[in-house]
């Protein structure tokens, strides 16, 4: 908690300093500064397991209150060279794989827009693998306290270092959009007790096709991630120690924890298929998404959610249903697999035009405990958990 205090103080000050628009810092408006942040508070009623927002978080929110899971602060500086060419650098401080709030550069790119129908970006880019995935830390942008954990919590990467190109073509009053991207990346995720997985991504590439008609936005996407995977933590260490003992007797024994776990999980080559639809008409908002991620070991992560909200003056009540399920070896329901469903109800209250207050209750039905939870009691088989969250989101 001590480590959190300066972060919280900083967030509160940033919130107080809020003004309504992205501020130009120079008279000609070429240099701009803006930012976003969230002060989040979680209450978890489970003493058997700790709640996380995503698999990059090494520790979760245990029984009682915690401010670590959802609090964050981001800032963006932009500079416009010409109407066609600009650059953006964005940083974020949130609780992530390093186990603290150390800030990281989330994007840093040059953007070239020679025509309204073409955009080219080079540098560090958001991983636009699902709808909303590259804005999932911008709480002010969505009605919920956080994007549904069952769906967004399993994402392995936040950014790619590479290039993307977007083409837009109007068809009557509709719009077709094609985005293609390729690059490298890296990231650490925590997939279970004492197993930290490091993704050294040689190649990530993919794209999506969007169709916008009236209030609807549809998307179909496909991405492949090719990585060198290494494991660390207590479990791989113990495994390697045992292998070393065997090797003392048999010098030809060549198993390693990385090799064995790598084969078992098959994270070296991931294929992500996704579909999404968003309906946004006046006060009514509806979203539905589905994803299947396949591993090279023929395992899969299936996830999806539906959400509906209706704005009444300054208040937007909403409902979410989400679920996630893993299957190994193409068969359903084995021992190590993870399965849960979440029913959420909440409301967003727009305090001002740059600050929103949110409250949300998640009823999580954990059918088989797994990698979105931390510090799981070894004899726990799952059950129902209640997560109550408060969030204050702001932009400046």
């Amino acid at each position, binding site marked *: 908690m001590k480590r959190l205090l300066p972060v919280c103080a900083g967030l509160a000050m940033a919130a107080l300093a809020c003004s*309504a*628009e*992205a501020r130009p810092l120079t008279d000609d*408006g070429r240099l701009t500064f*803006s930012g*976003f942040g969230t002060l989040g508070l979680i209450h978890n009623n489970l003493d058997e397991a700790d709640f996380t927002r995503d698999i990059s978080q090494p520790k979760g929110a245990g029984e009682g209150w915690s401010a670590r899971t959802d609090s964050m602060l*981001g800032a*963006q500086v932009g500079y416009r060279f010409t*109407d066609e060419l600009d650059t*953006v650098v*964005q940083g974020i401080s949130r609780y992530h794989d390093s186990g603290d709030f150390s800030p990281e550069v989330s*994007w840093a*790119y040059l*953007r070239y827009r020679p*025509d*309204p*129908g073409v955009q080219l*970006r080079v540098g560090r*880019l*958001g991983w*636009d693998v699902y709808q*909303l995935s*590259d*804005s999932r830390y*911008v709480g*002010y*942008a*969505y009605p919920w306290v956080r994007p549904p954990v069952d769906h967004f919590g399993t994402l392995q990467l936040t950014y790619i270092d590479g290039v993307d190109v977007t083409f*837009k073509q*109007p068809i009557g*009053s509709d*719009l077709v959009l094609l985005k293609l991207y390729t690059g490298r990346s890296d990231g650490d995720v925590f997939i279970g007790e004492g197993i930290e997985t490091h993704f050294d991504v040689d190649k990530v590439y993919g794209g999506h096709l969007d169709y*916008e008609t009236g209030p609807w936005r549809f998307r179909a996407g496909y991405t492949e991630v090719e990585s060198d995977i290494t494991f660390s933590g207590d479990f791989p260490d113990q495994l390697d120690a045992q292998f070393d003992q065997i090797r003392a007797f048999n010098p030809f024994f060549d198993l390693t924890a990385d090799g064995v776990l790598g084969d078992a999980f098959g994270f070296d080559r991931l294929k992500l298929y996704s579909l999404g639809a968003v309906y946004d*008409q*006046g*006060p009514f908002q509806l979203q539905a998404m589905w994803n299947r991620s396949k591993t090279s070991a023929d395992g899969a992560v299936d996830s999806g959610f539906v959400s509906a909200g209706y*704005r009444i003056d*300054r208040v937007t009540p909403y409902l979410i249903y989400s679920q996630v399920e893993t299957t190994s070896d193409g068969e359903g329901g084995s021992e190590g697999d993870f399965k849960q469903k979440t029913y959420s109800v909440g409301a967003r209250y*727009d305090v*001002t*035009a*740059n600050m*929103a207050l949110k409250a949300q209750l998640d009823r999580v039905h954990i059918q088989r405990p797994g990698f979105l939870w931390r510090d799981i009691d070894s004899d726990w088989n799952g059950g129902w958990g209640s997560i109550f969250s408060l969030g204050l989101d702001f*932009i400046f």
Partner: protein
Amino acid sequence: MNRVQRLLIASTLFATLVAAVPASADIAVVVNANSGIDHLTRSDAVNIFMGRYRKLPTGNVALPVDSSSLKARFYRALVNKDLAEINSYWARLVFSGEASPPQQIASGDDVHQLVLQNMNALSYVDSAHVPDDMHVVLTLGE
């Protein structure tokens, strides 16, 4: 009654009168009268102001300009959303680097100047007060 008091009373009366007159009913999307743009559809205006696709019928890149004093009325009329929702919409696009919001201009006179100087600029005015050198390409009922 001194002059200051009289002035105060007069201005209060005037303000009351102005407030009592119903706000004129429509918002006009305007361009430079010499821009060569005759007409825009509502979906053109949505595409341009919401950053979806910013090409004018002339083939040039559109330069949308938000006029602060009318902004709330304009977006209510265009997409039935209030300013918090518009800011929320832009937060997603700005912080994912997908698009930039229209240029923000506080004073109506400055908006007028910008539209006079730039053939690709679009903004909006109260349809009851359209200057002669601006051309209305779309009227949004309120």
